[in-house]
Every structure is written in C-alpha cells, then in structure tokens.
C-alpha cells in the first residue's frame, strides 16, 4: 500500500563536508559498502516504506548522481504517477547565487502542490538508518504534532551532528549547532515529517520574510509556536560526514555480518558484472567483496568494490578499494581508500594508519 508521504531528499545541507571524496561528486553519490552510493540507503528505505513519489533536491556536483539515478528504474521509481524527480538548485543568471534550501523548495513548489500525498517526509542522504517512516507518520498523527523530527541516541562525539533537546513528552525544545558530544545524548537525524499544507505555508512565509534556511525558519523558529514532536529511532544510525567517519563506518561493516544483513536489499544501479573470480594465490579474509573482481592476491579486513583486480602477491589490509581499481603484482595497500579506477603499479606501497587513512584520488596511477 502506498503511504501518504511525499518523499524529499534534501542534498543542500551537505556541501563542504568530506572533501577528499567529493571533488567529483556530491556526498550523496559517495560510494559505500562495496557496491552502493550513500543515497541508495535513504532512497531504498523510502521505497520500501511505500513512498512512491520522491523528489531529490540537489545543490552542486550532481553529474555522478544523475548518472547513478537515471530514470529511477532500479528503485522502482520509473512511474507514470509520481516516481522520481530530480530538481536542480535554485540558481539563475540574474540571482545572487545560492541562497538556501528553502529557495530550492520554493522554486519547485509545484512539485508539492501537485502531489496527492498529504504529508511531506524530508531527509538528508548521509545518515544511514532503517527508519520506519510509516511508523513516524503514525506517531506524528497520534501525537497531534505539527512537525515531527526523528532523533536517536549516540555515544560517540560527532562534529556534524546536532544535539536535540526535549521538554516533557518528547516535545522538542532545541536543535543545537553542529558538534555533538556524548553528554548531549541524542541528535537530530535530519529527518522531518509534517503536513504538506503546513510545509508549503511555512516555506512561503519564510521566503516572504527573506529567509532561506529550512533548519532556522521551519524548525528552530517554530519550536515555541508549533508543536514539534520528537520520534525516537532505536536502530543503528551510521553518520557519514568526514573521511574518518567514512572509514570508521566502513570498517564497522566488517565486524558484524548482522549489520551488513540490514543492507541485503538495498537497491542500486545495476552494472551487470559477472561473479567474482578467485584464482590460485588468492587469500581473502574478513572482507566484503562485490562482483566482477579478479583476485590473485591477499586482502584482509577490506572492502573491494565492483570490478577490482588484485594481482599476484599483492597485499591489501584495512583498506577500501573502489570500483575498477587495479592493485598490480606485489603492490601493498594498507589503511588506504582508493577512489575509482586507481592503479597501484607493480611493487608500489601505499600505507596510511588506522587514524589517518591515505586517500588516492580517482584515476590516479601510483
């Protein structure tokens, strides 16, 4: 059954993070977990929650994302009614450049007005979590809230995350600045549900006042006037915002098969790669391996994306090797992240540390 939620993936809040892998792509398009891009997780979760009408609001560097999403077919979003919409940012020749995400929503307000759904679900793309959106909507209605924000508990500090505070009965009283400390206990998952009419009205009012920031105008400044409810998500949330968090969250995938199992049915662009070949001399342990690889060397505690080649006597340890990279005979790669189509020549050594993994840019030949 279709839900009454119109899905919005808002990519305008993510600019400026995680520069090492976002030179050629936006954060939403960063490859993750051997065969996906970050956006696959939120998008799949929406589809699996029967959200059948999804708008993606982009900001910059979206070529890779457009290539990845195509018509939305792989997410079952190539529909006559609804489906996938990708919106370019609100920029024009005579404007003063990019003003904020509300300007984006306002420019494309017809998307909201034309949709049949009565509620809007807004999410980012870099917090990976299996939030049950239908349950959020149920609680939103039951609590008679005007706006519901999704939060979760966290034990580690996080420069990206915003702490969230409540009064009695899960009523949100504050959404803090970025820079979460363990003493804050809970953070805002950048996921919001509200009625479409309220959303459109709040956007229009903010734009009329010359305000362009959703967090400020639609959430923070409404906390005293509207009933903003907090929905607690109790599962695992992986926040990916920096090289370190990317590396750490990737390595966590290797610790627990259960965690990987959650990703079992994540949809992504199909590449039609054949299965992976293990040749004599291959020794692969505690690793995630995607299809299309040709393995003759050693890999331990690593993630190998689609179509990676590992030559004889090559050794890979605690590394992330992206699509179509080649590690030639006898080369050594430790604590490194190799972007797509990197070649490490025969006998070369790339070595970072667990704290500071080395990043090798796309198409580099080492």
């Amino acid at each position, binding site marked *: 059954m279709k839900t009454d939620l119109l899905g919005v993936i808002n990519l305008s809040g993510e600019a400026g993070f995680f520069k090492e892998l976002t030179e050629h792509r936006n954060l939403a398009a960063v490859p993750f*977990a051997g065969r996906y891009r970050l956006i696959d997780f939120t998008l799949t979760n929406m589809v699996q929650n029967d959200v059948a009408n999804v708008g993606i609001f982009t900001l910059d560097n979206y070529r890779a994302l457009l290539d990845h999403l195509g018509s939305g077919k792989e997410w079952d979003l190539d529909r006559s009614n609804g489906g996938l919409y990708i919106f370019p940012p609100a920029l024009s020749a005579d404007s003063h450049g990019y003003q904020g995400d509300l300007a984006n929503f306002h420019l494309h307000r017809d998307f909201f007005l034309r949709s049949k759904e009565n509620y809007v679900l807004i999410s980012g793309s870099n917090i990976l979590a299996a939030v049950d959106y239908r349950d959020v909507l149920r609680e939103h209605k039951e609590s008679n809230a005007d706006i519901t924000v999704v939060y979760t508990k966290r034990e580690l500090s996080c420069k990206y995350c915003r702490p969230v505070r409540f009064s009695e009965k899960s009523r949100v009283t504050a959404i803090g600045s970025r820079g979460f400390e363990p003493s804050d206990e809970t953070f805002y998952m950048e996921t919001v549900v509200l009625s479409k009419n309220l959303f459109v009205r709040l956007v229009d009012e903010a734009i009329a006042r010359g305000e362009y920031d959703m967090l400020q105008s639609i959430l923070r400044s409404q906390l005293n006037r509207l009933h903003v409810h907090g929905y607690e998500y109790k599962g695992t949330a992986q926040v990916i915002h920096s090289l370190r968090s990317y590396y750490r969250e990737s390595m966590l995938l290797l610790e627990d098969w259960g965690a990987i199992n959650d*990703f079992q049915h994540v949809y*992504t662009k199909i590449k039609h790669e054949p*299965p992976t070949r293990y040749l004599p001399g*291959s020794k692969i*342990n505690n690793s995630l391996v*995607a*299809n299309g690889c040709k393995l003759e060397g050693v890999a331990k505690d690593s993630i190998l994306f689609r179509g990676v080649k590992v030559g004889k006597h090559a050794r890979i340890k605690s590394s992330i090797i992206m699509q179509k990279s080649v590690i030639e005979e006898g080369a050594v790669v430790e604590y490194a992240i190799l972007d797509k189509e990197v070649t490490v020549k025969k006998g070369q050594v790339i070595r970072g540390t667990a704290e500071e993994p080395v990043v090798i840019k796309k198409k580099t030949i080492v």
Partner: protein
Amino acid sequence: MAKKEVVAMLLAGGEGKRLGALTKHTAKPAVAFGGKYRIIDFPLSNCTNSGIDTVGVLTQYEPLELNRYLGIGSAWDLDRRNGGLTILPPYQAQTGKNWYEGTANAIYRNLSYLNQFDPEYVLVLSGDHIYKMDYEKMLEAHKQSGADVTISVREVPWEEAPRFGILNTDSELRINEFEEKPENPKSNLASMGIYIFNWEVLKRHLIQDAGDAESSFDFGKNIIPNMLFENLNIRAYKFKGYWKDVGTIQSLWEANMDLLELEPEFDLYDPAWKVYSVNPNQQPQYIGNQAVIETSIINEGCRIDGEINHSVLFYGVTVGDGTLIKDSVIFPNVTIGKDVTIHRAILADGVVVEDGATIGEPNGEILVVEANSRVSKNDIVKQSIQ
C-alpha cells in the same frame, strides 16, 4: 507495429528431461549457470549484443519460473516500445486448443506475431546452449550468399560426428544433405539449431508443413529436409568459439567447470560482450576469517566461512566453518552448515545441508540435490536426491 528487419524466435519450451531433478519444476532455459545466470541469458544477451531488439520467447513446459525471470525483458534491454521481448505461450483458438507439437509448429502457431513486424528475416534460436555469437555477422553472411536459409554449424571431431545432426555441403558451404546422427558421416559440420530464414520462404514452408498429417512439425526432421527437397539455397555458417550443449547433468557440470580454467575459453568478463541477467539485488559477499577460497567463482550475497575449491557459487549461499566444497556447483540461496563435505555435486536452489553431512565422493559421478530439499545432520549422500 513498426517493420523490423529481423525478428528472433527463441524456443524455450523444452522440458530438458536429461537434467533430471533440475528441471522437475523449471523449464530448461531457466536452469542456473555460471554463478549468476540462467541458460536463457546467453541467447538473450546475444540478441541484445547483436542489435536484435525484437524477440519472441516460446514457452510451454513449467513456465512459472521462466516467466517470472523474463518479466518484460528489462534485464536485457528488451523492454521496448516497438518490439522488445514477448512471451509466447500456447493458446486456445477457434481452430482448437493444442500444445506446441514441435519446434516448427510452435513458430507456425505464432505467424500472426511475426506478421505484425513484416520482417525480412527470422532468426530461430534455442534456449539450451552456452555460447556467445554475433547474430549480426551471421545475418550479413546470409545476405551476401543470397541464401534462403542459413544454418549455423560448428566443426566437431570426426569421431563425435555420429552423435549430431550433420550437414553435408559443397565447397561453397551450400548444404545438399542433412543427416541426423549418421553412422558414417560425410562431414563434420554439426548443426547448432540456429537458423536464419527469409521470412516469406519460412512462412510458406510452415503453412505447408502444418497441413501435412505425417509431419512431426520439427525444423530438423521436416522443414529443412523439405526445403532441401525443393532445392532451396541453404548455406552453412561456420561458427568458431565456445559452444556447449548443457542438456545433461554431466555437460552442465562440465560447462560450469570450464569457467574455472585460468584462461577460460568462455570469457564472462569481456566488457564488449556483457552477459545480462536479472539482478537479485544482493549485498557484497562476505568472506570470513577462516575462509579459504581457491580457483572459484562466487557471487554476491554469499557468506563464506569454509573452504571453497574449484567450485561455482551462486548468490545468497552460506557456507559454515570447517566445510569443504570441491568441484561443485551451488545454486542460489543454498545454506550449508559446518563441517560439511561436498564433492562433485550440483545443489539446486534453496537446498539446506545440515552440519556434518557428506555429499558425493572425490572421484564419484556428479550428484544432484533437488531444489529446496534438506540433507540431515551427518547424512552421507551417495546418490542424487530427486
């Protein structure tokens, strides 16, 4: 419908009796192959790679799984506005309700499907061979020779020729005789069951054959001999490259093992000739700390903690600690427990093997374990389970 120069008709209704338990509830073209594929992926991918965008798939035997797999042809880029993939099952008509009674009859019953495209040529394929072939090149040869019919052939060793349908030709490759399994072959050119017909010629012969009460409505037995009798211009087109009939358990197993060669003759990894298949959307495979994998092909969605040697594993297979799998083919979603030993076996979809069981022997015959069956703890399996 827009006119199409060539329409492919893929015969996919065969029962595949010699595949035993593997085709108990599945049509032969839907049988798994090569860690990721179904047999029908090969002719369909050949069509796509050859630029043929209109394919009729003739189904009959146990079509559920095959139909589900084919869908609207998206996996092979055959979901098209004009043409594309069409599943053609037998149907009721005012002239009666009948099953397809032979290869030629199956096409005859779908003349109206072909008529709507007003094709110049019809390519007839079968869904039980593993090969890569550019049908466009065959079509070019067909046009250049001015033939009415072109039959794809391959050279087989002379001593094996008596097992095949053999075509005798002159030096220009014009066929003058067809002999099914000749005791004393005059040629070693074996028919591959791939035909290009000029549509008008084929149509006339199908209609003629349909009126012949004595006919068994078969291309090899009736249509081609009748055309030869009429002295039509029938040419052989020599195909070189890997081609394997996977009609028996032994040959299916062998063809899978062929993929494990260091430099396999049949290369699945050629980016210029991708083999397309329906994607089961699995996560990457996880290879555990104790796993030892050598000379094997493994698909996504597997979790391996045991030893895999010289084997082919499809998606979603779980292999426990202390287990050894050697010289075997494991179909999708098979669960294998701890301390299991498997030699020379084909385990069909969804089989569960409990801890400590033994299947097959190092030099034994190839065993098949039927889909969704269960091998109990510490069982010793020495015969196929079907």
